């Protein structure tokens, strides 16, 4: 299925959960927050949340800023 992650089109297996995605992207253990279609998905729901075709995912973290 086609998913947009941080503005980039990606191909993922159907049934991929957010937890799977985090592992696929090598982001496990990192402090981050995720939105799917502009709705925040709490970390506690990553394993149960399944992505679907055309989902727009934003994965953010904290960086230096004033």
């Amino acid at each position, binding site marked *: 299925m086609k998913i947009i992650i941080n503005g980039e089109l990606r191909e993922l297996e159907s049934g991929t959960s957010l937890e799977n995605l985090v592992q696929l992207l090598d982001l496990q253990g990192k402090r981050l927050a995720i939105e799917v279609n502009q709705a925040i998905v709490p970390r506690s729901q990553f394993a149960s949340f399944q992505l679907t075709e055309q989902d727009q995912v934003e994965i953010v*973290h*904290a960086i230096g800023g*004033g």
Partner: protein
Amino acid sequence: MMANLAEPLKNVINIADDTLIIADKTYRSRLLVGSGKYKDLEETRLATEASGAEIITVAIRRTNIGQNPNEPSLLDVISTEHYTLLPNTAGCYTVEDAVRTCRLARELLDGHDLVKLEVLGDEKTLFPDVTATLEAAKILVKDGFKVMVYTNDDPLIAKRLEELGCVAVMPLAAPIGSGLGIRNPYNILTIVENARVPILVDAGVGTASDAAIAMELGCAGILMNTAIAAARNPVLMASAMKKAVQAGREAFLAGRMPRKRFASASSPIDGLFF
């Protein structure tokens, strides 16, 4: 050590008791710093330590996907254990983006809900869009956030933001990153005099004396980033700023002498021998 309240405190100030309280939390440092614009994370770490700041602003941005997973990140050097992080809504020009950013920040930081709200109105000056700021503040306060809000030096807007429930109001000294120092000290003074929440000057500070002036006006604190990060020696400037904020605060508490039009000799006339 508590001062004996029966004795007049006019000449006795225990500066250690002069703490900053924001949203019911007590801080020793009245200097708050941003974490952007440094050469690298090591410089960020050293300058932040030298500043003595306890509250550090951070930005919320997309994660770099495909980056080396062992690459150190900001939170490795500015940890949530040693610092109070203050996520900002830098780069937001709409109410929607600012609110969205704050919600993501709260999720990112496990429910930590102290945020710096800024809704920009213009790319050249980075002045705040105050009407959007008022709107965003209202939404965020209702949603349970503790909002420290970046605004201009208009005393009416500052008071409105306080009345909306912001925990601190932060008028700019001058445009973000301009280093011009306080452009209108009288407005800042008016804001401070009318406020029931901490007023922190945020943005536009350039050097140590600017910070001292802000504190001498009675500000509760000051927030800066470029003034330190863009100095030739950021770690040294951070140290200077720490001292300037302390000096300005002590001068304010000491109560300055009045300005006079003409001279007033410091040595007595009596006993002149010529």
